[in-house]
């Protein structure tokens, strides 16, 4: 689940739903905003979810809290090997949020498939298109 800013909204429901139905799969959220202190939406809930094991991984990117801005796509790249492994294992990847962010995330995913999937650019595009066709890669960008 990649949902910086208001894009995190549906993922709150996803995690609550999966908890409620006792889903066994793992959950990984990547969230970003400008400032950790004031814009970490639903922070208390994410802290609780992590602690309770309802969320297994949480990565954060607060772009204006450091000298060098850092965005969600960087977090993806940093953990590219695991991202690719999750995709290969059948994970569903959801992106929600600003259109521009959606484009940056898509480019990052492409790079990840190239580097960790050992594919060239064209094959990487096809890989991602296949994921979208099969419903394993869904986007709600606005």
């Amino acid at each position: 689940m990649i949902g910086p800013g208001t894009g995190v909204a549906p993922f709150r429901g996803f995690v609550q739903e999966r908890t409620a139905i006792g889903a066994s799969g793992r959950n990984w959220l990547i969230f970003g905003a400008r400032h950790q202190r004031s814009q970490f939406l639903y922070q208390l809930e994410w802290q609780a979810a992590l602690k309770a094991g309802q969320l297994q991984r949480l990565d954060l990117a607060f772009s204006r809290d450091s000298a060098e801005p850092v965005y969600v796509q960087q977090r993806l790249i940093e953990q590219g090997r695991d991202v690719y492994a999750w995709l290969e294992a059948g994970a569903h990847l959801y992106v929600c949020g600003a259109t521009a962010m959606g484009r940056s995330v898509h480019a990052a995913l492409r790079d990840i498939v190239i580097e960790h999937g050992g594919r060239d650019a064209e094959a990487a595009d096809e890989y991602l298109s296949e994921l979208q066709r099969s419903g394993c890669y869904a986007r709600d960008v606005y």
Partner: protein
Amino acid sequence: MNEVLSPVETLKRGSRGLRGTLRESLGDAITGGLRESDTQLLKFHGSYQQDDRDLRDERRRQKLEPAYSFMIRTRLPGGVATPAQWLALDALAARYGNGGLRLTTRQAFQIHGILKHDLKPTIAAINQTLIDTIAACGDVNRNVMVSANPVESRAHAEVQACAQALSEHLLPQSRAYHEIWLDEQAVIGADASEPVYGPTYLPRKFKIGFAITPINDVDVFSQDLGFIAIIEQGELVGFNLLVGGGMGVTHGDARTYPRLADELGFIRKDQLITVATAVLTTQRDHGNRSDRKLSRLKYTIDRLGLDVFKRALEALVGESLPPPRAYRFDHTGDRFGWVEGFDGRWHYTLRIESGRVRDTDTVRLLSGLRAIARVHRGDFRLTPNQNVIVANVDANERALIDVLLDDHGLAHALHGAAIRRFALACVALPTCGLAMAEAERYLPTILDRMDALLSRYGLHDEPIVFRISGCPNGCSRPYLAEIALVGKAPGRYNLMLGADFQGRRLNRLHRENIDEAAILTELDVLFARFASDREAGEHFGDFVVRVGIVRAPQFIVAKLSV
């Protein structure tokens, strides 16, 4: 003592020289705070985790954690800072803090409002100005205090040097600080042990103060370990040794109480480090490590008995202590305005209410002191009364300082009601986690209201020591005030009366848990009586004791005053 150790003891022992998991905590972006255990260890590094208590409810409703931030406190023996250091701290406060500086009742700088991800850059930057924050908080020796601007300046420099040497001798040796904040490479076995502190440091905080007569601004009788500089014919010959002072109290726990230090004897200059270390290590070995409310040296002494303590100390020192020498204290306050030093240089003491250096529309302390720091060629001295001295000004530069003071609305800071002159307030809300009531934010209001009452009885110019604390820990040393308010609940205080003007007598509880209306009603009655029944030149604190408004306090210390 076979009781269960306090959990903090286990934490210290297992912390690998105060490292804990600070690095991990600092890097964890899910929270703006540290893991609980690391918040305890952080204190030894000179910082407290805080949160904005005004925002707690609102943030909880917003599903956000408390608005965490960090306070950093400097280690600054005697409160002496260069203009370059002042400017650097001012810039850091603007960049990383919530703007403005605080000057504490222990002569240190505090910067508040630092976010977790800025903590390391701020501490690193402070160290680059040759100030550190080591042991400014925690179960260690704290900032060593020295009388800020005594009359005998020649001896002052020597006492200041003694204080600095002692501060350094009692620093923790762990390289944790340098590794975590200053990127020093870890060297295996570099700090295998703490020669003075041992693996669990002290049972509690430890406070040292040097008083240079005739001014007891450091409140030497409130210190765990006090030294009264004995000066004969302008020469520092040694110190009277005082042990066992302490302010902290817990409401409703009669086992806790403020205590004045006992005078044990006289020591020579060359004995200072040995004696100080002996007192500290005796407290290290015998202090209560089960109940932190009873850990301070004052309780250790009362439990062991003063004679036993003294004998143990003399055994460690290797000789018995001759009796204390005679000295005199006039008051605990600062002398505002210009004072000439022994060498023809000048010192200007500027009153800073609650030690809060910031700009308002009319009084621009922050930019004024910044402007002064840019041209000043002497130094700054933070006073134990939360004020600052622009020190060592050449006679021909006085005019320039005066112009800058005037430009920033600071020239009249010393004027006004006498009740303001000695007033101290701790920070309390919104950042202090221990505050039960307001202190700093309430001081201007309560001073105005007290002045209105005093003026009614012609007492506008009457010097009275008034202090307010947001909780009974007493960081503004309220138990040594002629009138004190000690916070108990929002808007409610214990009213304490009857300390003396030289800081040699504790006050007593007069009214418990009262609100402002009751405080003012009571003070009105007392001021009226004082105006009509006082003896000539009698201080308010002495008056309330003499006429029996408060019982003679239990801990009067017999003095050998000249």
